């Protein structure tokens, strides 16, 4: 950057610190905007208003509340396995943010297998959920964990297949490259808005968002944490800091997946190349742009979450296997044919 060449350890430290600040902040913004305010306005009420002006400090109050709670581990629970899952889920959430580019240089590590890495890492959180359900020594948690395992594995496939269409069109797995392709591309010669893949890969975008909704465990796919049946599902025995970690990583993952979707389909941190914005300006504008796009998509996720009832487990699975996967395969075929033909 401006400071010239930094040593590897200095660069890594800065990136780690930035990630440690950005990820929880992004999650906090998402929690405030969507969980506290959007759902309240959709239900004709106000949400938290007392802690800070218009309830902006409510999350601080909640974090303080959870931090001072007693650390309760059920008697029959497996002590070690009970303590581990929050950290698995937290770790995978942070790992998601490693490849998301927020500017021409602002990426923790621009892996050549960018999107493949994201998909692989997001599967690891299933282990956390399953272990949490098993180790809680609670039948409700167990059922929630099993449901989560079935659902999360089933919806990995549509997510992967939806992304393949983008990869074929872009010709690369690297997320920065995908962003540049969209910025500098053009639609039949008309390049005012670049070539965001949402236009050509609309089917893929819809399938990806549905799969993300299921991966995050949000209604209509929130069988694992179905509040009216298994109360908390795999999270039911977790209190205090452990629950806080689950809660924040759920929202951080929502922001992360939305950022990935924005990168793949909406052009990521970049504004269209035809607007000729100097590259140095993009270093500062880029993070704001990707944050806005990610928040918009997170808003869509939560809008759907608070408006719909939930699907039953077998209906979930049927939808994934019998509907989403064939449609996404069809999408890939058509994309491949058109890519070769055009």
């Amino acid at each position: 950057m401006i400071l010239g060449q930094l040593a590897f350890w200095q660069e890594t430290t800065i990136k780690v610190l930035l990630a440690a600040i950005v990820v929880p902040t992004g999650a906090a913004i998402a929690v405030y905007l969507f969980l506290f305010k959007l759902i309240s306005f959709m239900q004709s009420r106000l949400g938290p208003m007392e802690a800070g002006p218009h309830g902006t400090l409510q999350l601080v109050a909640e974090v303080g509340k959870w931090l001072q709670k007693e650390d309760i581990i059920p008697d029959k629970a497996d002590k070690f396995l009970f303590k581990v899952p929050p950290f698995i889920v937290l770790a995978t959430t942070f790992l998601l943010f490693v490849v998301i580019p927020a500017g021409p240089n602002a990426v923790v590590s621009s892996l050549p297998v960018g999107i493949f890495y994201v998909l692989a890492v997001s599967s690891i959180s299933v282990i956390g959920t399953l272990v949490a359900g098993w180790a809680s020594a609670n039948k409700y948690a167990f059922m929630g964990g099993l449901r989560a395992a079935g659902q999360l594995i089933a919806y990995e496939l549509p997510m992967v297949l939806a992304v393949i269409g983008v990869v074929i069109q872009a010709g690369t797995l690297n997320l920065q490259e995908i962003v540049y392709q969209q910025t500098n591309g053009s639609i039949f010669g008309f390049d005012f808005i670049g070539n965001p893949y949402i236009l050509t890969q609309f089917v893929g975008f819809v399938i990806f968002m549905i799969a993300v909704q299921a991966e995050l465990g949000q209604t209509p796919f929130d069988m694992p944490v179905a509040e009216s049946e298994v109360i908390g599902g795999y999270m039911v025995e977790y209190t205090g800091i452990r629950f806080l970690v689950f809660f924040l990583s759920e929202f951080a993952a929502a922001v992360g997946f939305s950022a990935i979707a924005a990168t793949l389909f909406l052009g990521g941190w970049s504004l269209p190349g035809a607007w000729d914005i100097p590259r140095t300006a993009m270093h500062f504008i880029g993070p704001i742009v990707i944050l806005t796009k990610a928040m918009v998509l997170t808003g869509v996720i939560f809008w759907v979450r608070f408006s719909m009832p939930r699907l039953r487990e077998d209906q979930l699975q049927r939808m994934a296997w019998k509907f989403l996967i064939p449609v996404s395969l069809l999408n890939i075929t058509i994309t491949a044919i058109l890519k070769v033909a055009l």
Partner: protein
Amino acid sequence: MPAPKIPGFLKGLGVTARTAKETMFPDGLKNPVPHPTKGAVTVQYPHAKEEPTPRSRGVISLQEDNCTSCMLCARECPDWCIYIEGHKTLAPPRREGGKPRSVNKLDRFDIDYSLCMYCGICVEVCPFEALYWSPEYEYSEMRIADLLHDKERLGQWFETVPDFEAHEAGAEVKQKPVSRKGAK
């Protein structure tokens, strides 16, 4: 060809979006600044308060001058939450040369609001119009024992008793006034 049917769940999304818009922009979109405090149905207690209706059963108040310690209210209460104690005294005669009248003097009239079911049988049954409903509701206490309101406190609630409302057209019941001066 008929227009394609919009799937039901999309209409549902439309309902929630419309409600969100109505909450954020209660004056319509002419005013682009969101104003949710006005658009939401929430009343932010204790900064703002809702007005209960005049007949609302908030607290029972005592018009002490009317009470003769007949004990009807204490007897009819389903919860037995009214405690009355009184004694007889002699009052001066009404006319010169008459004999003194014996009247009941009220020593103690307590209502235990931790037991009270807010049914209103005591108010209804009192033959001397000594008990009235008041819509006041903010008398929560930190200790249950403080929920026993004594004669003085019940008399203070009397200030807040509203006048009886007029009835709808077609009603034959005459509306009695609240006996505020307490004349016997």
